[in-house]
């Protein structure tokens, strides 16, 4: 893995955006996520954003806090944000690290997140 290969793919689905995230997240990927997501919200807008974390099994408190700030920015730009597919290891890790999770709305699947946003 090289430094420059962090890539975030945004999938537009009926007024919402789905963002699948993969692997150990890390700062470069979160930089990309922030830029791509906020730019999309600025140019095209979206009612809802689903951050699909099903492909992420390691997330530390720095990553989670960065995610919190990206979500807050997206909300300031008029979008609702839901986390989907949080894995057991991430859920246990975040609570063990005692990271602030009060901001997070979460569903088990992307479909459930979309239903919540409708």
């Amino acid at each position, binding site marked *: 893995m090289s*430094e420059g290969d962090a890539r975030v793919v945004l999938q537009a689905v009926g007024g919402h955006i789905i963002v699948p995230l993969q692997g150990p997240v890390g700062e470069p990927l979160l930089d990309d996520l922030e830029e791509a997501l906020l730019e999309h919200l600025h140019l095209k807008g979206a009612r809802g954003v689903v951050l699909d974390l099903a492909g992420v099994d390691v997330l*530390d408190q720095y990553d989670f806090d960065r995610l919190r700030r990206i979500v807050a920015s997206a909300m300031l730009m008029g979008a609702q944000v839901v986390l989907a597919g949080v894995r057991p*290891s991430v859920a246990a890790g975040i609570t063990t690290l*005692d990271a602030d999770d009060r901001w997070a709305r979460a569903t088990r699947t992307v479909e459930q997140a979309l239903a919540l946003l409708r």
Partner: protein
Amino acid sequence: MKESIQRVRILAEADTVRAVLTVREAAERIGMKRSAGSAVATAVSELATNVIKYAGAGRMTLRPLRNGSQPGLEVVVEDYGPGIIDVEQAMTDRVSTGGTLGLGLPGTRRLVDEFELESKPGEGTRVRIVKWG
């Protein structure tokens, strides 16, 4: 196959991801449970990020362990940064969550089975963790 020691230099943000992947792969290779592998990888992610944020440069050393049939990993994350002046305070949980983040050391300790921290102001910090499972 003889398991060997692996080292990862931690010099930039991307190295924290490399360190985490190295730990995840080693945990899987030696047959650790998924939950234990993720826990030690999360702990390493936390420690490696501290190296980047507070020390600038360091390294991770990874050693597979075995206790009877149980696999384990020993990880040492060390840096040559400013060190931690008040270790006791750094190891104390904050009363409330949210706000500014600490070094995350109390949480990191909860993720693993053994946790040792040595730090000398001006010389650096060395954290040794062990996770079984």
